[in-house]
């Protein structure tokens, strides 16, 4: 240990200026990340964003350069390095390097980020979770760079090597994508649902299980460390390069084939739903249409039917997605493929405009303008078969289908007066009103922060805000459905590989924590047009209201799990299909058109 600290101290002294630069850049990056949501002036915001981008670039270059310099200070290749003929224990040297790298590239950012998260009142447990995620990814990246640095004699040679590796990674990404596509195809072919449920409520995308990603990351880290150890002990570059290829391959295999989804968020459905929830068809006739995605694909016939869920208490919404179905005609029987998309199920008596009524009831107003961004109430896909499996002129038969019914709880969690400084916080989610504007298009500038971690095993709730005037019994939804939930501009390549595309938008240099300012506006002259027969409002009338007495209502939307229900229809008459044409490559279905 004495030798380890001796080597480490010498490296710190040698690289004191780059290390200081790195620490300053890191502190600067997190300071800007923490303070930028406070800035309101657009010019300043622009300047800050430019500064942030430049700082991120400088930080990346400094970080990579520093890692390479620290490793190459005691070169692992060539025959001229000083330490090679001195009694430097190779593993002590490696330990000294790793300790320094860990201190600079894991501990320093973790501390900076923990301070930042604390300033935004993120609970300690979530700070720990975010730190774990970010540290794991950063560790994998740092060790990966260290292995690369150890294989090259100089920074320039490392740059060449890194270029070659990047090209290989692109190729590997392509292969992984193919594997993933193949896996998805397999899952669909056996008519079972994938572990992470697909889109449940339109824009609400459930997180994939992070266990495979974490396991792959740990395997990557472990094997990369073994390689590094081999480099320090044997300095057999050719062998290490050959073995290095296996590191990402092994990780990718673990990621693709990992069988234990320990961290999969799988919320249990509420007790009332187990026995009380049922679904039944509406009185409306089914809508049948033909569709064809590609020239080579077989034409499909899809049947949609508005459904009603009963036994659902107030404050709950449900969606349904077809798992499997059988349609038995007099002389034949067809099996359906799984439904491609879930759709809302009406709750209550009628399927017409039930989302508007739901919101009116929840917000205790007579009129709600804007909504939660749900797709139009188009009915649930209950049958999807090859077109030639059903008679051209329609059919009549007995239907039996199994549907996955997902539940969503919507609740008011805060009523904030329209005043600067009002705060709503729940868990790691924090919303602060920084500015209020009450003109023709009222809006609030909010500072939103959220910290998401892969180890929570919960679906993080989504928050939506409404401007409500109780006196006039009107509420307007914001133009941002899910505020501060994710940042689509965050680079996601590495993180989506590890954690899956979902709520988790991680990058090695940022993490699951985000803080940003957002202007949330409420359009008073709000006109929305739905396709005829879609069930939604054709037009919402302009509203001219004085909003000084209004309040900001925060809704929490929580995914409450899913359960399977059987839908049986003794005599389901399928009319002649509507011909559907795909235009512009975008498929939209407007039944009854």
């Amino acid at each position, binding site marked *: 240990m*004495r*030798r380890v600290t*001796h080597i480490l101290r*010498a490296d710190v002294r*040698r690289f004191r200026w780059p290390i200081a630069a790195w620490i300053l850049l890191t502190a600067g990056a997190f300071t800007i990340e923490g303070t930028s949501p406070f800035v309101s002036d657009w010019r300043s915001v622009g300047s800050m964003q430019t500064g942030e981008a430049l700082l991120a670039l400088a930080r990346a270059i400094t970080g990579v350069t520093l890692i390479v310099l620290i490793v190459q*200070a005691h*070169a692992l290749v060539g*025959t*001229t*390095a*000083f330490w*090679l*003929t*001195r*009694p*430097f*224990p190779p593993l002590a040297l490696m330990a000294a390097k790793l300790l320094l790298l860990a201190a600079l590239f894991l501990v320093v950012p973790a501390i900076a980020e923990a301070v930042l998260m604390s300033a935004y009142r993120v609970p300690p447990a979530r700070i720990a979770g975010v730190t774990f995620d970010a540290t794991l990814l950063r560790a994998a990246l740092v060790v990966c760079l260290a292995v690369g640095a150890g294989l090259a004699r100089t920074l320039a040679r490392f740059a060449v090597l890194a270029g070659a590796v990047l090209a290989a990674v692109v190729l590997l990404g392509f292969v992984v994508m193919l594997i993933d596509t193949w896996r998805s195809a397999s899952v669909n072919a056996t008519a079972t649902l994938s572990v992470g449920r697909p889109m449940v409520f339109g824009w609400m995308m459930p997180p994939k299980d992070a266990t495979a990603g974490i396991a792959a990351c740990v395997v990557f880290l472990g094997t990369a460390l073994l390689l590094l150890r081999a480099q320090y002990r044997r300095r057999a570059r050719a062998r290490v390069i050959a073995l290095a290829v296996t590191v990402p391959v092994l990780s990718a295999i673990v990621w693709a084939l990992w069988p234990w989804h320990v961290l999969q968020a799988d919320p249990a459905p509420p007790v009332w739903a187990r026995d009380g929830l049922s679904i039944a068809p509406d009185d409306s006739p089914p809508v049948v249409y033909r569709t064809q995605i590609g020239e080579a694909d077989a034409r499909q016939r899809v049947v949609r039917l508005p459904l009603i869920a009963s036994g659902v208490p107030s404050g709950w919404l449900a969606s349904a997605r077809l798992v499997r179905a059988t349609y038995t005609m007099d002389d034949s029987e067809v099996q359906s493929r799984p439904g491609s998309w879930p759709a809302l199920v009406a709750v209550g008596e009628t399927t017409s405009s039930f989302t508007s009524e739901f919101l009116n009831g929840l917000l205790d107003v007579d009129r709600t303008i804007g909504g939660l961004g749900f797709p139009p109430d188009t009915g649930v896909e209950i049958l999807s078969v090859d077109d030639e499996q059903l008679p051209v002129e329609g059919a009549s038969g007995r239907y039996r289908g199994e549907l996955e019914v997902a539940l969503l709880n919507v609740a008011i969690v805060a009523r904030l007066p329209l005043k600067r400084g009002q705060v709503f916080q729940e868990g790691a989610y924090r919303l602060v009103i920084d500015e209020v504007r009450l003109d023709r298009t009222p809006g609030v500038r909010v500072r939103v922060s959220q910290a998401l971690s892969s180890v929570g095993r919960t679906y993080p709730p989504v928050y939506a805000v409404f401007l409500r005037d109780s006196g006039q019994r009107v509420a307007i939804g914001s133009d941002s459905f899910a505020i501060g939930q994710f940042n689509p501009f965050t680079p996601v390549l590495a993180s989506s590989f590890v954690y899956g595309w979902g709520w988790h938008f991680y990058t090695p240099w940022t993490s699951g924590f985000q803080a940003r300012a957002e202007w949330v506006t409420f359009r008073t002259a709000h006109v929305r047009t739905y396709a005829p027969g879609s069930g939604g409002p054709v037009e919402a009338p302009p509203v001219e209201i004085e909003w000084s007495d209004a309040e900001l209502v925060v809704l929490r939307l929580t995914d409450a799990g899913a359960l399977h229900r059987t839908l049986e229809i003794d005599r389901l008459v399928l009319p002649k299909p509507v011909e559907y044409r795909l235009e512009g490559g975008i498929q939209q279905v407007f039944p009854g058109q």
Partner: protein
Amino acid sequence: MNVIETQALGRRFGRVEAVRDVTLAVPAGTVFALLGPNGAGKTTTIKMLMNLVAPTSGSATVLGVDSRRLGVAEFQRIGYVSENQDLPDWMTPSELLAYCRPFYPSWDEALASRLQAALALRSSGPLRSQSRGTRMKAALLSSLAYRPELIVLDEPFSGLDPVVRDELVRALLEVPDERPWTVFVSSHDVDEVERLADTVGFMLDGRLVLAERVDALLARYRLVEVVWPGDVPPRVDAAADGWQPQGSSGRTVRFVDTRHERPDAMERITAHFPGASVQVLPMTLRDILVSLAKRPLHPEAV
């Protein structure tokens, strides 16, 4: 006991055979100089001995350990200085010594101070801003201060002025105490080596063509000049007599007698050149090696 032993040691780089079939032994307490022109394979041989390069054939032991397995314990007993070594040149000489000290249990601070004074090594700035001589002095000092049992020097005098060379040699001579120590030095500077070495090896084209004690070598080699009384002097047969022809002009024949230590050496010369005037001249180490390097070698002629 031999501190260094090699058996048919060889190293190939692609199609180039840099070192071929080198077999040598360096007994403890000797100063072995590995000589030869540039590109002869000296540095590659040393790199194999120091486990910097893996041999592709043969084997070597250093301090009784297979050179491929040299580790911390062995390097605590070895001092290695090379002109090609990358010193931590951001350090001052004093910092270099402080950096090395914890790795050597036998570090002798008094010796380090004495050597620092003897080498006139000042700690005025980082090594990268120092002269080549100062860097070599620092490297040597950091390799001697723990009284290594084996000192391996790869071209230590290359490019140094005579004053610095002298200081380095004196520093080397400063080290020994009651313990036996061995020096293995490679160089193409024969004059400096001659002051130090008691055994020399000569490499040419990757082969070790000679390895012998210096006094024996000097006793064995003589330059012979024969003035033949007739018109055409007899041929010098190298293979048969250990004579290396050095050329002739007119009636004068020159050759190197590589076995002049034999009692009948003069008789053989006069028998081959009856009636001729024969002059036998002693050779310096430099003369011997130059003669070896110039002539195509026949094993029996060495």
